[in-house]
């Protein structure tokens, strides 16, 4: 164990925990804001700390404080299994968190002949880990619903159970098709496979190589995360809050946050397996390292352009209408954020300039590439999370027998057929 390996392990663990936990408030806010904007409303945009609204993200932190300070109410009719009733939300939450840990945020680093994985859990069987851990998450839902001794909660738990048997098989089989195609159970190797091309010009992303399996994977992951159009375990109109009817305050918050982490994890798995993970199309890690000065030059041009567009958008939209008398400090906020963004851009430019012309260190180059890949990963992750959210406000809900019908009559035969064809092609090519 060298110092570098310990450092990378600690950094990637912190990064994984941050990416999973810090995205919860952002995702809750994004959900509310995007819902509003899709429906031509504004959404939460007022909460601020010293005038800094950041578009309203602060609202989520206020919500968390509210949920933490709420009375911890325990329903007195629950006599048996108290600890399991309390433990069920924790289970859903922590399982969703653990499943996220197997995702690679950047390509492995090669330092002094050591291969260092940029993964919170440096394992090379990530897919199996994800499938095993991800399947436990629903147990928290079922326990919580069963132990509530409440009709709505029980119905919610039953529905969650029926969901599991409808999506788990197609999910597993579609991932099996990817395992056969990529010939690995390692998420990082999957991403590396996808950095190539096929048919000479298309990026070899899973969605292009395996379109059918990709669709099945996306649909079953929507089902696994319990999100629209597959929200069957809870339904305002029929069974109130479903399995979490009796859970209050922080217990409810655990379920709630677990749902968002699960969504984040599902997005991460989708982009890792079928959208090229941390790679940008056509460009592999080796290519970036070999042509580092070109890469740095392109980055030096692209970063100011993106920041400029962001500042332009902010100056236009971080304002109030002329009819409103007070701007609640938005001009000040825009000014400060502009300075911060410009400062960061200048810093990045200086560092890239230095790396391009003065430093000849391979380590510095690969660390730069790693940071770039982490940024690409986060951007892709957020884009897919936004896709999840827009789908929620687009599609009406399925009934839970319809989900089973979909799973058993359509997704399962299709994934079996796809698996068969994949196996034939792979054997034929080899």
């Amino acid at each position, binding site marked *: 164990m060298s110092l570098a390996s310990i450092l990378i392990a600690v950094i990637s663990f912190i990064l994984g925990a941050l990416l999973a936990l810090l995205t919860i408030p952002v995702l809750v806010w994004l959900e509310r804001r995007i819902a509003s*904007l899709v429906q031509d409303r504004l959404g939460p945009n007022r909460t601020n700390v010293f005038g800094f609204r950041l578009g309203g993200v602060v609202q989520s932190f206020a919500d968390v404080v509210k949920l933490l300070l709420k009375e911890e109410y325990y329903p007195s009719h629950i006599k048996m299994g108290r600890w399991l009733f309390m433990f069920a939300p924790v289970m859903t939450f922590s399982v969703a968190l653990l499943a996220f840990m197997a995702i690679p945020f950047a390509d492995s680093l090669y330092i002094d002949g050591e291969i260092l994985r940029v993964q919170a859990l440096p394992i090379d069987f990530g897919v199996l880990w994800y499938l095993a851990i991800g399947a436990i998450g629903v147990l928290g839902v079922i326990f919580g619903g069963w132990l509530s001794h409440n009709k709505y909660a029980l119905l919610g738990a039953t529905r969650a159970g029926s969901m599991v048997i409808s999506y788990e098989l197609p999910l597993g089989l579609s991932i099996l098709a990817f395992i056969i195609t990529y010939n690995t159970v390692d998420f990082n190797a999957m991403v590396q496979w996808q950095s190539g091309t096929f048919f000479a010009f298309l990026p070899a992303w899973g969605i292009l190589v395996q379109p059918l399996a990709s669709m099945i994977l996306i649909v079953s992951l929507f089902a696994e995360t319990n999100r629209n159009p597959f929200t069957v375990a809870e339904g305002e109109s029929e069974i109130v809050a479903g399995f979490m009817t009796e859970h209050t305050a922080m217990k409810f918050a655990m379920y709630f946050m677990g749902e968002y982490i699960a969504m984040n994890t599902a997005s991460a798995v989708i982009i890792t397996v079928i959208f090229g993970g941390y790679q940008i199309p056509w460009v592999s890690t080796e290519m970036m390292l070999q042509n580092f000065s070109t890469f740095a030059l392109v980055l030096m041009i692209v970063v100011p352009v993106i920041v400029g567009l962001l500042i332009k958008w902010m100056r236009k939209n971080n304002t109030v209408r002329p009819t409103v008398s007070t701007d609640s400090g938005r001009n000040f906020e825009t000014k400060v954020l502009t300075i911060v963004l410009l400062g960061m851009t200048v810093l990045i430019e200086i560092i890239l300039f230095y790396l391009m012309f003065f430093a000849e260190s391979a380590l510095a180059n690969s660390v730069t590439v790693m940071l770039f890949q982490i940024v690409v990963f986060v951007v892709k992750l957020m884009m897919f999370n936004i896709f999840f959210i827009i789908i929620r406000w687009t599609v009406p809900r399925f009934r839970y027998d319809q989900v089973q019908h979909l799973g058993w009559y359509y997704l399962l035969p299709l994934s079996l057929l796809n698996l068969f064809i994949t196996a034939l092609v792979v054997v034929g090519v080899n």
Partner: protein
Amino acid sequence: MNKKITVIPRYGDSFKDKLYLPAIYDGFKVTFKHLFENVSDINAVDTLEYPEEQPTDITERYRGLHRLTHRSDDSIACVACFMCSTACPSNCIFIEATEREDGHDEKMPKSFFIDTLECVFCGYCVEACPCDAIRMDTGIFSLTGNSREDFVLNKEQLLANKGAFGEENSCARD
């Protein structure tokens, strides 16, 4: 028997409909268009930033907070006939009558209370009034206070409310 019969086509049987994905794609286009347009110009979203922006589309027929009208010499138009409190379905108007000494009519209210927490803003009092003495044309739609007592309006407060649409005095008493 020459009725026109419209046969409504049933959808959902074609392969495209059963595939479900084209429909999701169409829906996604709609929602994404709304999102994109609103993100690129957030001030064009057709909502009011309420406490800072006040509504400008309150019409003459809008039933706002009540007021008591004046005569041309600024005395009260009300003659304490109790028609409004009789018509009131939520019994929120409390009048005490007294003799009138300014030479207009025989009676006037000594006190006139409206409990706006009870009021359902139906406008029956306005309909019932023979003197055009109570009106709901102030255009005030929000009344705030710190205690229940703040919402019980007395005669002076009701007389102080101004009409928002031009007509100040009672049209039935001069």
